Protein backbone atom coordinates (compact mmCIF):
# COMPACT_ATOMS: atom_id res chain seq x y z
CA UNK A 1 0.00 0.00 0.00
CA UNK A 2 1.19 3.53 -0.76
CA UNK A 3 2.02 5.93 2.03
CA UNK A 4 3.12 9.51 2.59
CA UNK A 5 3.90 11.65 -0.40
CA UNK A 6 2.88 8.97 -2.94
CA UNK A 7 -0.56 8.56 -1.33
CA UNK A 8 -0.97 12.34 -1.43
CA UNK A 9 0.01 12.46 -5.12
CA UNK A 10 -2.59 9.85 -6.14
CA UNK A 11 -5.33 11.72 -4.23
CA UNK A 12 -4.22 15.08 -5.67
CA UNK A 13 -4.18 13.59 -9.16
CA UNK A 14 -7.73 12.23 -8.87
CA UNK A 15 -9.08 15.54 -7.53
CA UNK A 16 -7.06 17.48 -10.12
CA UNK A 17 -8.45 15.33 -12.96
CA UNK A 18 -11.98 16.00 -11.74
CA UNK A 19 -11.44 19.77 -11.58
CA UNK A 20 -9.67 19.84 -14.94
CA UNK A 21 -12.43 17.79 -16.56
CA UNK A 22 -15.15 20.01 -15.08
CA UNK A 23 -13.36 23.11 -16.38
CA UNK A 24 -14.11 21.92 -19.92
CA UNK A 25 -17.85 22.19 -19.26
CA UNK A 26 -17.67 25.80 -20.45
CA UNK A 27 -16.77 24.63 -23.95
CA UNK A 28 -19.86 22.42 -24.40
CA UNK A 29 -22.85 24.19 -25.93
CA UNK A 30 -23.98 21.81 -28.66
CA UNK A 31 -23.99 18.11 -29.56
CA UNK A 32 -21.03 18.76 -31.89
CA UNK A 33 -19.09 20.19 -28.93
CA UNK A 34 -20.01 17.17 -26.83
CA UNK A 35 -19.27 14.43 -29.37
CA UNK A 36 -16.63 16.10 -31.58
CA UNK A 37 -15.15 18.81 -29.35
CA UNK A 38 -16.61 21.48 -31.64
CA UNK A 39 -14.14 20.23 -34.32
CA UNK A 40 -11.51 22.52 -32.86
CA UNK A 41 -8.79 20.37 -31.29
CA UNK A 42 -5.11 20.36 -32.33
CA UNK A 43 -3.29 17.34 -33.75
CA UNK A 44 -0.77 16.98 -30.91
CA UNK A 45 -3.49 16.64 -28.25
CA UNK A 46 -5.45 14.11 -30.35
CA UNK A 47 -2.27 12.14 -31.17
CA UNK A 48 -1.35 11.87 -27.48
CA UNK A 49 -4.92 10.92 -26.62
CA UNK A 50 -4.96 8.13 -29.25
CA UNK A 51 -1.78 6.64 -27.78
CA UNK A 52 -3.00 6.88 -24.19
CA UNK A 53 -6.40 5.51 -25.07
CA UNK A 54 -4.79 2.58 -26.90
CA UNK A 55 -2.36 1.74 -24.13
CA UNK A 56 -4.55 1.77 -21.05
CA UNK A 57 -3.43 0.71 -17.59
CA UNK A 58 -4.47 -2.93 -18.11
CA UNK A 59 -2.34 -3.09 -21.27
CA UNK A 60 0.54 -1.34 -19.52
CA UNK A 61 0.62 -4.05 -16.86
CA UNK A 62 -0.27 -6.84 -19.31
CA UNK A 63 2.39 -5.98 -21.92
CA UNK A 64 5.10 -5.77 -19.25
CA UNK A 65 3.91 -9.13 -17.97
CA UNK A 66 4.08 -10.62 -21.48
CA UNK A 67 7.59 -9.20 -21.94
CA UNK A 68 8.57 -10.84 -18.65
CA UNK A 69 7.19 -14.19 -19.84
CA UNK A 70 7.85 -14.18 -23.60
CA UNK A 71 10.39 -11.41 -24.29
CA UNK A 72 10.45 -8.59 -26.84
CA UNK A 73 8.13 -10.22 -29.40
CA UNK A 74 5.19 -8.56 -27.61
CA UNK A 75 6.59 -5.25 -28.91
CA UNK A 76 5.13 -6.22 -32.30
CA UNK A 77 1.76 -5.00 -31.06
CA UNK A 78 3.01 -1.41 -30.92
CA UNK A 79 5.32 -1.51 -33.93
CA UNK A 80 3.99 -3.55 -36.89
CA UNK A 81 0.71 -3.88 -35.02
CA UNK A 82 0.07 -0.13 -34.96
CA UNK A 83 2.28 2.10 -37.07
CA UNK A 84 1.40 0.89 -40.62
CA UNK A 85 -2.31 0.80 -39.71
CA UNK A 86 -2.19 4.34 -38.32
CA UNK A 87 -0.53 5.63 -41.49
CA UNK A 88 -3.14 3.88 -43.64
CA UNK A 89 -5.88 5.41 -41.49
CA UNK A 90 -4.29 8.87 -41.72
CA UNK A 91 -3.91 9.01 -45.50
CA UNK A 92 -6.91 7.01 -46.73
CA UNK A 93 -9.74 6.57 -44.24
CA UNK A 94 -9.68 9.59 -41.94
CA UNK A 95 -10.03 12.15 -44.78
CA UNK A 96 -13.25 10.45 -45.95
CA UNK A 97 -14.71 10.32 -42.45
CA UNK A 98 -13.69 13.91 -41.75
CA UNK A 99 -14.90 15.36 -45.07
CA UNK A 100 -18.17 13.48 -44.73
CA UNK A 101 -18.83 15.26 -41.41
CA UNK A 102 -19.37 11.88 -39.77
CA UNK A 103 -19.69 11.21 -36.07
CA UNK A 104 -19.35 7.41 -36.12
CA UNK A 105 -17.80 4.61 -38.19
CA UNK A 106 -21.19 2.86 -38.53
CA UNK A 107 -22.45 6.13 -40.04
CA UNK A 108 -19.95 5.61 -42.90
CA UNK A 109 -21.05 1.97 -43.24
CA UNK A 110 -24.68 3.13 -43.34
CA UNK A 111 -23.97 5.58 -46.17
CA UNK A 112 -21.78 3.10 -48.08
CA UNK A 113 -23.94 -0.02 -47.60
CA UNK A 114 -27.31 0.41 -45.87
CA UNK A 115 -29.02 1.22 -42.57
CA UNK A 116 -29.01 -2.44 -41.47
CA UNK A 117 -25.21 -2.66 -41.69
CA UNK A 118 -24.96 0.60 -39.73
CA UNK A 119 -27.29 -0.65 -37.01
CA UNK A 120 -25.65 -4.09 -36.65
CA UNK A 121 -22.16 -2.57 -36.47
CA UNK A 122 -23.29 0.07 -34.00
CA UNK A 123 -25.16 -2.34 -31.71
CA UNK A 124 -22.14 -4.69 -31.71
CA UNK A 125 -19.83 -1.86 -30.61
CA UNK A 126 -22.33 -0.63 -27.99
CA UNK A 127 -22.60 -4.14 -26.52
CA UNK A 128 -18.83 -4.53 -26.46
CA UNK A 129 -18.23 -1.14 -24.85
CA UNK A 130 -21.00 -1.63 -22.27
CA UNK A 131 -19.56 -5.02 -21.25
CA UNK A 132 -16.06 -3.58 -21.06
CA UNK A 133 -17.18 -0.76 -18.73
CA UNK A 134 -17.97 -3.10 -15.84
CA UNK A 135 -14.56 -4.77 -16.17
CA UNK A 136 -12.75 -1.44 -16.18
CA UNK A 137 -14.65 -0.22 -13.11
CA UNK A 138 -13.71 -3.40 -11.30
CA UNK A 139 -10.05 -3.10 -12.36
CA UNK A 140 -9.96 0.53 -11.14
CA UNK A 141 -11.51 -0.50 -7.84
CA UNK A 142 -8.97 -3.28 -7.33
CA UNK A 143 -6.11 -0.87 -8.07
CA UNK A 144 -7.43 1.72 -5.58
CA UNK A 145 -8.07 -1.03 -3.05
CA UNK A 146 -4.47 -2.26 -3.32
CA UNK A 147 -2.83 1.17 -3.47
CA UNK A 148 -4.93 3.18 -1.06
CA UNK A 149 -6.60 0.52 1.06
CA UNK A 150 -10.09 1.78 0.20
CA UNK A 151 -12.98 -0.75 0.31
CA UNK A 152 -13.98 -2.03 -3.15
CA UNK A 153 -17.41 -0.35 -3.29
CA UNK A 154 -16.04 3.03 -2.19
CA UNK A 155 -13.37 2.65 -4.88
CA UNK A 156 -15.94 1.83 -7.59
CA UNK A 157 -18.22 4.70 -6.65
CA UNK A 158 -15.40 7.24 -6.41
CA UNK A 159 -14.04 6.18 -9.82
CA UNK A 160 -17.51 6.35 -11.36
CA UNK A 161 -18.16 9.70 -9.67
CA UNK A 162 -14.96 11.35 -10.93
CA UNK A 163 -15.01 9.95 -14.47
CA UNK A 164 -18.78 10.25 -14.80
CA UNK A 165 -18.83 13.91 -13.75
CA UNK A 166 -16.17 15.15 -16.12
CA UNK A 167 -17.36 13.03 -19.06
CA UNK A 168 -20.98 14.08 -18.47
CA UNK A 169 -20.14 17.78 -18.40
CA UNK A 170 -17.02 18.07 -20.55
CA UNK A 171 -17.70 15.53 -23.33
CA UNK A 172 -14.87 14.49 -25.62
CA UNK A 173 -12.83 17.67 -24.99
CA UNK A 174 -12.48 16.65 -21.34
CA UNK A 175 -11.69 13.08 -22.41
CA UNK A 176 -8.89 14.15 -24.79
CA UNK A 177 -7.36 16.84 -22.60
CA UNK A 178 -7.19 14.67 -19.49
CA UNK A 179 -5.41 12.13 -21.73
CA UNK A 180 -2.78 14.75 -22.61
CA UNK A 181 -1.87 15.20 -18.95
CA UNK A 182 -1.74 11.46 -18.49
CA UNK A 183 0.51 11.11 -21.53
CA UNK A 184 3.03 13.65 -20.25
CA UNK A 185 3.17 12.05 -16.81
CA UNK A 186 3.29 8.50 -18.17
CA UNK A 187 6.18 9.32 -20.50
CA UNK A 188 8.24 11.14 -17.88
CA UNK A 189 7.64 8.44 -15.25
CA UNK A 190 8.20 5.70 -17.84
CA UNK A 191 11.54 7.05 -19.04
CA UNK A 192 12.67 7.53 -15.43
CA UNK A 193 11.78 3.89 -14.79
CA UNK A 194 13.69 2.66 -17.86
CA UNK A 195 16.74 4.77 -16.99
CA UNK A 196 16.83 3.62 -13.35
CA UNK A 197 16.11 -0.01 -14.29
CA UNK A 198 19.05 -0.02 -16.72
CA UNK A 199 21.24 1.45 -13.98
CA UNK A 200 20.04 -1.29 -11.59
CA UNK A 201 20.79 -4.18 -13.98
CA UNK A 202 24.18 -2.75 -14.95
CA UNK A 203 23.35 -1.72 -18.52
CA UNK A 204 21.72 -3.36 -21.53
CA UNK A 205 24.57 -5.79 -22.41
CA UNK A 206 24.79 -6.99 -18.83
CA UNK A 207 21.05 -7.64 -18.76
CA UNK A 208 21.16 -9.61 -22.05
CA UNK A 209 24.05 -11.74 -20.71
CA UNK A 210 22.25 -12.43 -17.42
CA UNK A 211 18.97 -13.41 -19.09
CA UNK A 212 20.81 -15.68 -21.56
CA UNK A 213 22.27 -17.67 -18.65
CA UNK A 214 18.92 -18.09 -16.90
CA UNK A 215 17.79 -21.21 -18.75
CA UNK A 216 16.35 -22.52 -22.04
CA UNK A 217 12.93 -20.88 -21.46
CA UNK A 218 14.64 -17.49 -21.94
CA UNK A 219 16.37 -18.53 -25.19
CA UNK A 220 13.91 -16.62 -27.43
CA UNK A 221 13.48 -13.58 -25.17
CA UNK A 222 15.31 -11.29 -27.57
CA UNK A 223 13.80 -12.63 -30.81
CA UNK A 224 11.24 -10.19 -32.17
CA UNK A 225 10.04 -12.84 -34.64
CA UNK A 226 8.89 -16.08 -33.02
CA UNK A 227 8.67 -19.39 -34.95
CA UNK A 228 5.28 -20.75 -35.95
CA UNK A 229 5.47 -23.55 -33.37
CA UNK A 230 6.31 -21.20 -30.48
CA UNK A 231 4.54 -21.73 -27.15
CA UNK A 232 3.98 -17.97 -26.86
CA UNK A 233 0.74 -16.49 -28.30
CA UNK A 234 2.81 -14.58 -30.90
CA UNK A 235 3.89 -16.91 -33.75
CA UNK A 236 5.04 -14.91 -36.80
CA UNK A 237 2.10 -16.16 -38.87
CA UNK A 238 -0.41 -14.82 -36.34
CA UNK A 239 1.51 -11.55 -36.03
CA UNK A 240 1.64 -11.03 -39.80
CA UNK A 241 -1.83 -12.17 -40.86
CA UNK A 242 -3.95 -11.71 -37.75
CA UNK A 243 -2.30 -8.66 -36.20
CA UNK A 244 -0.67 -6.64 -39.00
CA UNK A 245 -3.20 -7.31 -41.75
CA UNK A 246 -6.41 -7.44 -39.75
CA UNK A 247 -6.56 -6.55 -36.06
CA UNK A 248 -4.27 -3.52 -36.22
CA UNK A 249 -6.15 -2.03 -39.17
CA UNK A 250 -9.52 -2.92 -37.72
CA UNK A 251 -8.56 -1.27 -34.45
CA UNK A 252 -7.07 1.92 -35.86
CA UNK A 253 -9.58 2.34 -38.70
CA UNK A 254 -12.75 0.72 -37.39
CA UNK A 255 -12.68 1.44 -33.66
CA UNK A 256 -15.08 4.23 -32.75
CA UNK A 257 -13.17 5.41 -29.69
CA UNK A 258 -9.97 5.89 -31.76
CA UNK A 259 -11.43 7.38 -34.93
CA UNK A 260 -13.83 9.69 -33.06
CA UNK A 261 -10.79 11.49 -31.64
CA UNK A 262 -9.49 12.29 -35.14
CA UNK A 263 -12.90 13.68 -36.08
CA UNK A 264 -12.53 16.34 -33.36
CA UNK A 265 -9.63 17.94 -35.29
CA UNK A 266 -9.92 21.59 -36.29
CA UNK A 267 -9.33 20.76 -39.97
CA UNK A 268 -8.45 17.86 -42.23
CA UNK A 269 -4.71 18.50 -41.95
CA UNK A 270 -4.91 18.23 -38.15
CA UNK A 271 -7.07 15.09 -38.43
CA UNK A 272 -4.44 13.33 -40.56
CA UNK A 273 -1.52 14.75 -38.57
CA UNK A 274 -3.02 13.47 -35.31
CA UNK A 275 -2.75 9.86 -36.52
CA UNK A 276 0.76 10.38 -37.94
CA UNK A 277 1.94 12.05 -34.74
CA UNK A 278 0.28 9.26 -32.73
CA UNK A 279 2.11 6.63 -34.79
CA UNK A 280 5.45 8.35 -34.09
CA UNK A 281 4.72 8.38 -30.35
CA UNK A 282 3.57 4.77 -30.51
CA UNK A 283 7.08 3.66 -31.44
CA UNK A 284 8.29 4.70 -27.97
CA UNK A 285 5.64 2.70 -26.11
CA UNK A 286 7.51 -0.64 -26.21
CA UNK A 287 10.52 1.10 -24.67
CA UNK A 288 8.41 2.38 -21.79
CA UNK A 289 6.31 -0.71 -21.27
CA UNK A 290 8.30 -3.67 -22.50
CA UNK A 291 11.79 -2.85 -21.19
CA UNK A 292 10.80 -2.68 -17.50
CA UNK A 293 9.15 -6.12 -17.88
CA UNK A 294 12.32 -7.46 -19.45
CA UNK A 295 14.55 -5.96 -16.77
CA UNK A 296 12.28 -7.42 -14.09
CA UNK A 297 13.50 -10.86 -15.25
CA UNK A 298 16.88 -9.92 -13.75
CA UNK A 299 15.73 -7.77 -10.82
CA UNK A 300 12.79 -9.96 -9.70
CA UNK A 301 13.35 -13.45 -11.17
CA UNK A 302 10.83 -16.23 -10.65
CA UNK A 303 7.64 -14.18 -10.28
CA UNK A 304 4.64 -16.53 -10.34
CA UNK A 305 2.50 -13.90 -12.08
CA UNK A 306 4.29 -11.96 -14.84
CA UNK A 307 1.71 -9.16 -14.51
CA UNK A 308 3.33 -8.28 -11.19
CA UNK A 309 6.55 -7.32 -13.01
CA UNK A 310 5.74 -3.67 -13.67
CA UNK A 311 4.18 -2.80 -10.27
CA UNK A 312 7.16 -4.51 -8.58
CA UNK A 313 9.65 -2.56 -10.68
CA UNK A 314 7.89 0.75 -9.95
CA UNK A 315 7.88 0.08 -6.21
CA UNK A 316 11.47 -1.13 -6.01
CA UNK A 317 13.17 1.18 -8.54
CA UNK A 318 11.44 4.58 -8.61
CA UNK A 319 12.05 7.18 -5.87
CA UNK A 320 9.25 8.57 -3.64
CA UNK A 321 7.18 11.06 -5.61
CA UNK A 322 7.61 9.29 -8.94
CA UNK A 323 6.11 6.10 -7.47
CA UNK A 324 2.93 8.03 -6.66
CA UNK A 325 3.02 9.77 -10.02
CA UNK A 326 3.34 6.50 -11.95
CA UNK A 327 0.54 4.83 -10.01
CA UNK A 328 -1.56 7.95 -10.53
CA UNK A 329 -0.84 7.59 -14.26
CA UNK A 330 -1.96 3.94 -14.05
CA UNK A 331 -5.19 5.00 -12.45
CA UNK A 332 -5.57 7.77 -14.99
CA UNK A 333 -5.06 5.14 -17.71
CA UNK A 334 -8.04 3.25 -16.38
CA UNK A 335 -10.05 6.48 -16.11
CA UNK A 336 -9.07 7.27 -19.70
CA UNK A 337 -10.35 3.90 -20.91
CA UNK A 338 -13.62 4.40 -19.01
CA UNK A 339 -14.21 7.95 -20.25
CA UNK A 340 -13.48 6.91 -23.86
CA UNK A 341 -16.00 4.09 -23.65
CA UNK A 342 -18.63 6.34 -22.06
CA UNK A 343 -18.32 9.07 -24.66
CA UNK A 344 -18.04 6.74 -27.67
CA UNK A 345 -21.01 4.63 -26.59
CA UNK A 346 -23.08 7.77 -26.00
CA UNK A 347 -22.14 8.95 -29.50
CA UNK A 348 -22.98 5.59 -31.12
CA UNK A 349 -26.32 5.38 -29.32
CA UNK A 350 -27.36 8.98 -29.98
CA UNK A 351 -26.25 9.15 -33.61
CA UNK A 352 -26.85 5.58 -34.86
CA UNK A 353 -29.83 4.42 -32.80
CA UNK A 354 -31.68 7.33 -31.17
CA UNK A 355 -31.57 9.85 -34.02
CA UNK A 356 -32.61 7.52 -36.87
CA UNK A 357 -35.04 5.25 -34.97
CA UNK A 358 -36.43 7.08 -31.92
CA UNK A 359 -36.57 10.80 -32.63
CA UNK A 360 -35.63 12.18 -36.02
CA UNK A 361 -35.22 15.92 -36.63
CA UNK A 362 -35.19 17.11 -33.02
CA UNK A 363 -33.23 20.25 -32.14
CA UNK A 364 -29.53 20.03 -31.32
CA UNK A 365 -29.94 20.67 -27.57
CA UNK A 366 -32.17 17.60 -27.41
CA UNK A 367 -29.42 15.35 -28.84
CA UNK A 368 -26.87 16.92 -26.50
CA UNK A 369 -29.14 16.02 -23.56
CA UNK A 370 -29.63 12.47 -24.91
CA UNK A 371 -25.85 12.06 -25.15
CA UNK A 372 -25.42 13.23 -21.56
CA UNK A 373 -28.22 11.04 -20.22
CA UNK A 374 -26.81 8.02 -22.10
CA UNK A 375 -23.47 8.70 -20.39
CA UNK A 376 -25.21 8.59 -16.99
CA UNK A 377 -27.15 5.41 -17.83
CA UNK A 378 -23.94 3.70 -18.99
CA UNK A 379 -22.25 4.76 -15.79
CA UNK A 380 -24.98 3.08 -13.74
CA UNK A 381 -24.81 -0.07 -15.91
CA UNK A 382 -21.01 -0.14 -15.54
CA UNK A 383 -21.17 0.19 -11.75
CA UNK A 384 -23.97 -2.40 -11.46
CA UNK A 385 -22.22 -4.98 -13.64
CA UNK A 386 -18.70 -4.49 -12.24
CA UNK A 387 -18.99 -7.14 -9.46
CA UNK A 388 -19.61 -9.78 -12.17
CA UNK A 389 -15.95 -9.34 -13.12
CA UNK A 390 -14.87 -10.48 -9.68
CA UNK A 391 -16.64 -13.82 -10.22
CA UNK A 392 -15.02 -14.39 -13.59
CA UNK A 393 -11.32 -13.54 -13.47
CA UNK A 394 -11.01 -14.36 -17.18
CA UNK A 395 -13.72 -11.90 -18.21
CA UNK A 396 -11.25 -9.37 -19.57
CA UNK A 397 -9.78 -12.04 -21.84
CA UNK A 398 -13.31 -13.10 -22.82
CA UNK A 399 -14.19 -9.54 -23.79
CA UNK A 400 -11.03 -9.15 -25.85
CA UNK A 401 -11.96 -12.42 -27.57
CA UNK A 402 -15.42 -11.00 -28.23
CA UNK A 403 -13.71 -8.07 -29.92
CA UNK A 404 -11.83 -10.45 -32.24
CA UNK A 405 -15.23 -11.83 -33.35
CA UNK A 406 -16.26 -8.68 -35.14
CA UNK A 407 -13.02 -6.78 -35.85
CA UNK A 408 -12.17 -8.98 -38.87
CA UNK A 409 -15.57 -8.82 -40.64
CA UNK A 410 -15.97 -5.06 -39.93
CA UNK A 411 -12.54 -4.36 -41.39
CA UNK A 412 -13.37 -6.50 -44.45
CA UNK A 413 -16.46 -4.42 -45.24
CA UNK A 414 -14.68 -1.12 -44.49
CA UNK A 415 -11.78 -2.04 -46.76
CA UNK A 416 -13.94 -3.18 -49.67
CA UNK A 417 -16.37 -0.34 -49.07
CA UNK A 418 -13.72 2.28 -49.62
CA UNK A 419 -11.54 0.57 -52.26
CA UNK A 420 -14.03 -1.34 -54.43
CA UNK A 421 -16.89 0.51 -56.09
CA UNK A 422 -18.63 -2.72 -57.04
CA UNK A 423 -19.36 -3.84 -53.46
CA UNK A 424 -23.09 -3.68 -52.70
CA UNK A 425 -25.36 -3.31 -49.70
CA UNK A 426 -26.15 -7.05 -49.68
CA UNK A 427 -22.47 -7.92 -50.01
CA UNK A 428 -21.67 -5.83 -46.93
CA UNK A 429 -24.58 -7.12 -44.87
CA UNK A 430 -23.94 -10.80 -45.59
CA UNK A 431 -20.18 -10.42 -44.98
CA UNK A 432 -20.81 -8.79 -41.62
CA UNK A 433 -23.35 -11.35 -40.37
CA UNK A 434 -21.63 -14.47 -41.73
CA UNK A 435 -18.17 -13.21 -40.75
CA UNK A 436 -19.19 -12.61 -37.11
CA UNK A 437 -20.98 -15.99 -37.02
CA UNK A 438 -17.87 -17.73 -38.41
CA UNK A 439 -15.60 -16.07 -35.81
CA UNK A 440 -17.91 -17.29 -33.02
CA UNK A 441 -17.89 -20.81 -34.54
CA UNK A 442 -14.07 -20.84 -34.69
CA UNK A 443 -13.82 -19.68 -31.10
CA UNK A 444 -16.25 -22.32 -29.83
CA UNK A 445 -14.37 -25.13 -31.61
CA UNK A 446 -10.89 -23.61 -31.30
CA UNK A 447 -9.32 -26.82 -29.90
CA UNK A 448 -10.17 -28.60 -33.17
CA UNK A 449 -8.68 -25.97 -35.45
CA UNK A 450 -5.73 -24.41 -33.62
CA UNK A 451 -2.78 -25.71 -31.66
CA UNK A 452 -2.08 -22.58 -29.57
CA UNK A 453 -4.07 -21.81 -26.42
CA UNK A 454 -5.37 -18.36 -27.34
CA UNK A 455 -5.80 -18.17 -31.15
CA UNK A 456 -7.53 -14.76 -31.32
CA UNK A 457 -5.07 -13.53 -33.98
CA UNK A 458 -5.89 -16.48 -36.25
CA UNK A 459 -9.65 -16.14 -35.62
CA UNK A 460 -9.62 -12.50 -36.66
CA UNK A 461 -7.63 -13.37 -39.82
CA UNK A 462 -9.94 -16.21 -40.96
CA UNK A 463 -13.13 -14.28 -40.17
CA UNK A 464 -11.72 -11.31 -42.12
CA UNK A 465 -10.88 -13.55 -45.07
CA UNK A 466 -14.31 -15.18 -45.13
CA UNK A 467 -16.04 -11.78 -44.77
CA UNK A 468 -13.94 -10.49 -47.67
CA UNK A 469 -14.78 -13.45 -49.94
CA UNK A 470 -18.50 -13.35 -49.05
CA UNK A 471 -18.64 -9.61 -49.71
CA UNK A 472 -17.00 -10.00 -53.15
CA UNK A 473 -19.15 -12.99 -54.14
CA UNK A 474 -22.51 -11.54 -53.05
CA UNK A 475 -21.67 -8.12 -54.49
CA UNK A 476 -21.00 -9.63 -57.92
CA UNK A 477 -24.44 -11.26 -57.81
CA UNK A 478 -26.41 -8.20 -56.66
CA UNK A 479 -27.26 -4.75 -58.00
CA UNK A 480 -24.44 -2.21 -57.79
CA UNK A 481 -24.70 1.36 -56.47
CA UNK A 482 -24.94 4.33 -58.81
CA UNK A 483 -22.08 6.83 -59.15
CA UNK A 484 -24.09 9.48 -57.27
CA UNK A 485 -24.67 7.14 -54.33
CA UNK A 486 -20.93 6.52 -54.07
CA UNK A 487 -19.81 10.13 -54.24
CA UNK A 488 -17.39 10.97 -51.41
CA UNK A 489 -17.48 7.40 -50.11
CA UNK A 490 -15.04 5.44 -52.29
CA UNK A 491 -11.33 5.89 -52.89
CA UNK A 492 -10.14 8.45 -55.34
CA UNK A 493 -6.48 9.40 -55.74
CA UNK A 494 -7.60 13.02 -55.31
CA UNK A 495 -7.89 12.33 -51.57
CA UNK A 496 -4.08 12.20 -51.39
CA UNK A 497 -3.66 15.74 -52.68
CA UNK A 498 -4.59 18.98 -50.98
CA UNK A 499 -7.72 19.66 -53.06
CA UNK A 500 -10.71 19.04 -50.84
CA UNK A 501 -13.27 18.41 -53.59
CA UNK A 502 -13.58 14.74 -54.43
Amino acid at each position, binding site marked *: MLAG*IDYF*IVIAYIIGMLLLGLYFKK*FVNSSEDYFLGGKSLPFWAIGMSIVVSDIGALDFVGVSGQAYRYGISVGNFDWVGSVPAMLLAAFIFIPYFWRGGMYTIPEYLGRRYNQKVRTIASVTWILFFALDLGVLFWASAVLLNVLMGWPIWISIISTAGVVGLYTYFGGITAVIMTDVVQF*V*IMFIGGF*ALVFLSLYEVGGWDNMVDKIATMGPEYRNHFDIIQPQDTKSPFPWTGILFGLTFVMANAYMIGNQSIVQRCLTAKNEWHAKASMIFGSALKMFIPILVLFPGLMAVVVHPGLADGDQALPMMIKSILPP*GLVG*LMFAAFFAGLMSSVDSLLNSTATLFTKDIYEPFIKKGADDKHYLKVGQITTLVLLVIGVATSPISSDFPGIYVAIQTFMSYFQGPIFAILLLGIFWKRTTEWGGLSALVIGIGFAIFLNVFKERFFTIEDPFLYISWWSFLLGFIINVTVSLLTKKHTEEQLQGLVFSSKILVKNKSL
Partner: protein
Amino acid sequence: METDEINAGIKAAQINNALGFFIITFGVIVLFAMIYTETFVEHMTDMVAGLILISIGGGMMWKAKSNIKKLKAKQE
Protein backbone atom coordinates in the same frame (compact mmCIF):
# COMPACT_ATOMS: atom_id res chain seq x y z
CA MET B 1 -9.02 36.90 -39.00
CA GLU B 2 -12.68 35.99 -38.50
CA THR B 3 -14.41 36.09 -35.14
CA ASP B 4 -14.92 32.31 -35.18
CA GLU B 5 -11.21 31.71 -35.69
CA ILE B 6 -10.33 34.13 -32.90
CA ASN B 7 -12.79 32.43 -30.55
CA ALA B 8 -11.38 29.00 -31.47
CA GLY B 9 -7.86 30.30 -30.82
CA ILE B 10 -8.88 31.70 -27.44
CA LYS B 11 -10.55 28.39 -26.55
CA ALA B 12 -7.41 26.43 -27.46
CA ALA B 13 -5.25 28.83 -25.44
CA GLN B 14 -7.53 28.57 -22.40
CA ILE B 15 -7.35 24.77 -22.59
CA ASN B 16 -3.54 24.86 -22.82
CA ASN B 17 -3.40 27.25 -19.89
CA ALA B 18 -5.42 24.85 -17.72
CA LEU B 19 -3.31 21.85 -18.79
CA GLY B 20 -0.11 23.79 -18.15
CA PHE B 21 -1.25 24.73 -14.65
CA PHE B 22 -2.10 21.09 -13.87
CA ILE B 23 1.28 19.81 -15.12
CA ILE B 24 3.24 22.54 -13.34
CA THR B 25 1.50 21.69 -10.05
CA PHE B 26 2.61 18.08 -10.31
CA GLY B 27 6.13 19.18 -11.24
CA VAL B 28 6.29 21.18 -8.00
CA ILE B 29 4.99 18.20 -6.00
CA VAL B 30 7.65 15.90 -7.54
CA LEU B 31 10.35 18.47 -6.75
CA PHE B 32 9.04 18.65 -3.18
CA ALA B 33 9.22 14.84 -3.00
CA MET B 34 13.03 15.15 -3.29
CA ILE B 35 13.20 15.60 0.48
CA TYR B 36 11.93 12.01 0.88
CA THR B 37 14.64 10.43 -1.32
CA GLU B 38 17.58 8.54 0.16
CA THR B 39 20.20 8.11 -2.57
CA PHE B 40 21.84 10.58 -4.93
CA VAL B 41 20.35 8.85 -7.99
CA GLU B 42 16.82 9.05 -6.53
CA HIS B 43 17.41 12.69 -5.64
CA MET B 44 18.52 13.54 -9.18
CA THR B 45 15.67 11.55 -10.78
CA ASP B 46 13.02 13.46 -8.84
CA MET B 47 14.76 16.74 -9.60
CA VAL B 48 15.04 16.11 -13.36
CA ALA B 49 11.46 14.75 -13.62
CA GLY B 50 10.07 17.67 -11.58
CA LEU B 51 11.97 20.24 -13.64
CA ILE B 52 10.84 18.69 -16.92
CA LEU B 53 7.20 18.79 -15.75
CA ILE B 54 7.59 22.41 -14.63
CA SER B 55 9.20 23.35 -17.95
CA ILE B 56 6.46 21.68 -20.01
CA GLY B 57 3.67 23.16 -17.87
CA GLY B 58 5.35 26.57 -17.71
CA GLY B 59 5.92 26.60 -21.46
CA MET B 60 2.29 25.75 -22.13
CA MET B 61 1.05 28.48 -19.78
CA TRP B 62 3.41 31.11 -21.18
CA LYS B 63 2.44 30.31 -24.79
CA ALA B 64 -1.26 30.22 -23.90
CA LYS B 65 -1.17 33.56 -22.10
CA SER B 66 0.68 35.27 -24.94
CA ASN B 67 -1.81 33.82 -27.46
CA ILE B 68 -4.80 34.98 -25.40
CA LYS B 69 -3.28 38.48 -25.19
CA LYS B 70 -2.68 38.62 -28.97
CA LEU B 71 -6.10 37.25 -29.89
CA LYS B 72 -7.95 39.56 -27.47
CA ALA B 73 -6.12 42.52 -28.96
CA LYS B 74 -7.25 41.44 -32.44
CA GLN B 75 -10.80 40.96 -31.18
CA GLU B 76 -10.92 44.55 -29.97
